[in-house]
């Protein structure tokens, strides 16, 4: 059969519109750098006051720095050390459904707003906590105190260990089956298998995770603010906040902020050489992994270990449940309604802005990669994600100092809260969207060009491809923005409160039942957002069956 075609007129591609759009995306770079530059300008000086470098030799500063390093070191080491056997046990677990649930719980622990975790731990292990009498009888005295190093370590462990488990599990599951087959064929002992097959993976991942968790704990604000318990248990980040908001000692705040920036930024840059974990990933394969041929005893031990860890991870959430009764009372709603709406509004706006910004920042990078300008692309990526090197508190302080004499911060503070939240979340949105867009270019750029698609046609097709990643990124960025405490602590107007800030205020005045109720509410909103958006993302997920491989 013969197909007959008419010859339509040739099409002129709308080159000008492509050109202009491409140029517009470049504007996102000065925009993203502007906030940081303004913050740095603020860090230089304030109305003649500059950083007080004498402070660096002061006992107070050294004490704060020492405690910051100590808690970061113990938290990150403990997270990794506990994560390794748990991740290995998870690999031995046969029940794929339970495995997925456990991995989902791990993700929830990591992204749960910090103050929800803190409130849960206080309800569980605080002065009148559920488990406190048992712990005291176990210790043989009544000296148990959650506040201070104990609480900080427990909270950090609760949030970071599950993350380390997920990452370790992911890496172990990437060991090819052929390695296990070879190990079996060579009749290696368990110890030999561990040394030869697993250790290289665990070692590389462990180092990267150690660096990442260390920096997270070093920059931890809300946990230390809520559970610090005095000058002996203060980190640099909290000291900056106290100098600025309680003492209004700008030179001290600037010195501490610079120290925080140089140490945290330097550590991040150093640890980044080990690689960076794709922590946002929801996707986690649960294919059966043949760590070895485990005995029944080993399987039993794994199941028990995972069961115990699951209970321990769920306990702080369960401890919030008594707050549920308060949620049914209209009086409580008058307390929670405004902060809840403000948090949701703030979360949605900041998430939308950060995703748009990340998308815009990615366009010039894609263009450079398509032209095989890999070095320029790498450079642009560093600029686009530079906020990772500068803790939110440092940027907030710099910007606060810069804006203080220029605008009425009590009136416009909420705008700055949104803008700053969006700015600090850009790297996370960026890292979530980037692989998908790069994949689109690698798979389809030639095809799009060959089909002579207009920019609009191409964008429509690209959007269909990007949508699952975009939706799941929205969930994560929204939850992170909802949980912000550091930026709101600096810029939040006195007449407004977000839900996390309300929780902090309630907890710090020992109104634990109300704090639990508010935490439960925040947890439900965050978990629902994550769950609903992940369902939506899964529904739009694309099943792929690649064309035949290129010879």
């Amino acid at each position, binding site marked *: *059969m*013969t*197909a*007959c*075609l*008419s*010859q*339509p*007129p*040739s*099409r002129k*591609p709308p080159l000008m519109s492509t050109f202009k759009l491409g140029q517009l995306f470049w504007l996102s770079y000065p925009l993203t750098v502007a906030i940081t530059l303004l913050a740095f300008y603020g860090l230089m000086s304030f109305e003649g006051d500059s950083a007080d470098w004498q402070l660096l030799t002061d006992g107070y500063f050294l004490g704060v720095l020492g405690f910051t390093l100590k808690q970061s070191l113990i938290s990150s080491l403990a997270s990794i050390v506990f994560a390794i056997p748990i991740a290995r046990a998870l690999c031995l677990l046969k029940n794929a459904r339970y495995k997925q649930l456990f991995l989902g719980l791990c993700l929830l622990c990591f992204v749960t707003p910090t103050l929800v975790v803190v409130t849960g731990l206080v309800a569980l292990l605080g002065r009148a906590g559920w488990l406190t009498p048992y712990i005291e009888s176990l210790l043989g005295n009544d000296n148990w105190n959650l506040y201070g190093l104990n609480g900080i370590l427990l909270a950090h462990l609760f949030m970071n260990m599950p993350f380390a488990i997920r990452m370790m599990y992911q890496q172990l599951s990437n060991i090819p089956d052929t390695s296990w087959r070879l190990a079996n064929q060579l009749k290696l002992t368990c110890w030999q298998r561990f040394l030869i097959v697993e250790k290289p993976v665990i070692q590389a991942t462990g180092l990267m995770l150690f660096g990442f968790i260390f920096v997270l704990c070093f920059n931890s604000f809300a946990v230390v603010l809520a559970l610090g318990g005095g000058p002996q248990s203060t980190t640099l980040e909290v000291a900056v906040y106290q100098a600025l908001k309680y003492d209004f000692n700008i030179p001290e705040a600037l010195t501490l902020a610079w120290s925080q920036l140089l140490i945290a930024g330097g550590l991040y840059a150093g640890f980044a050489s080990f690689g960076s974990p794709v922590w946002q990933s929801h996707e986690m394969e649960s294919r059966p992994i043949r760590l070895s041929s485990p005995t029944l005893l080993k399987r039993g031990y794994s199941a028990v270990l995972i069961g115990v860890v699951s209970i321990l991870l769920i306990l702080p959430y369960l401890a919030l449940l008594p707050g549920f009764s308060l949620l049914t009372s209209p009086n409580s709603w008058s307390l929670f309604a405004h902060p809840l709406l403000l948090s949701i509004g703030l979360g949605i706006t900041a998430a939308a802005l950060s995703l748009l910004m990340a998308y815009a920042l990615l366009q010039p990078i894609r263009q450079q990669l398509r032209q095989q300008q890999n070095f320029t692309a790498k450079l642009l990526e560093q600029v686009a994600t530079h906020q990772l090197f500068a803790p939110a508190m440092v940027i907030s302080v710099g910007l606060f100092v810069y804006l203080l004499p220029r605008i009425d911060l009590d009136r416009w503070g909420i705008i700055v809260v949104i803008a700053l939240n969006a700015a600090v979340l850009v790297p996370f949105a960026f890292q979530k969207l980037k692989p998908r867009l790069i994949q689109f270019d690698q*798979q*389809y750029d*030639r*095809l799009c*060009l*060959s*089909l*002579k*698609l207009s920019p609009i*046609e191409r964008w429509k*097709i690209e959007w*269909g*491809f990007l949508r699952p990643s975009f939706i799941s990124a929205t969930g994560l960025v929204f939850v992170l923005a909802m949980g912000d405490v550091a930026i709101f602590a600096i810029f939040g107007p006195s007449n407004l409160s977000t839900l996390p800030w309300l929780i902090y205020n309630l907890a710090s005045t020992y109104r634990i039942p109300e704090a639990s109720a508010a935490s439960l509410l925040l947890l439900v909103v965050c978990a629902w957002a994550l769950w609903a958006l992940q369902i939506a993302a899964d529904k739009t997920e*694309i*099943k*792929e*069956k*690649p*064309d*035949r*491989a*290129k*010879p």
Partner: protein
Amino acid sequence: MLNLNDIYVTLDGYPLHYHLTVSTGEIVAIQGASGVGKTTLLNTVAGFITPDKGEVSWDGEELTNAAVDQRPVSMLFQDHNLFEHLSVLQNLQLGFSHKVPTHLIEQSAQTLGISEHLTKKPHQLSGGQRQRIGLLRTLLRPEPIILLDEPFAELDSATREVAGNWVRNTAKSNGKTVLLVTHQSEDVERVADRCIELRYPESATQ
């Protein structure tokens, strides 16, 4: 007439040289050993590779520096010819600047044995079905130069014959100029007017 006038391309450090002319409406098969530069030749005509030296022209108009989307070329790649998240029909409707020849698409899909798959997503299809869908769109697009990179590689012998005949008939009745890369001599005999064998080290011999 498609003219490749003393084209020099460097690929992974190896110099390649092409010099050939294809008449309008002619179907030319390109053969040669793996790595000799068959796909590179197609990519050069399509504009994905810019030659170091030489000139590509079509009906006297120079294309050497024209962007991919400004060339009168429709190309079937070895892989990734379909957007996985679009249905087969949506995929088939892309690449037409004005009216989509829906009736013709349906008719040709019938001939190629893929008409019952139009509402499916590509991942639901076999390699051969996907290849025929890509082939169908490439041939039906309005561009006068058609580049086919191993279009029958995943087809069984019966389907191969049907697809080959369809390509030849469609191309001939619409005056398409076709460059067809294939390893199979039966494809050359069935579809092409003549065959060019590319050879090492660097010359394309007509």
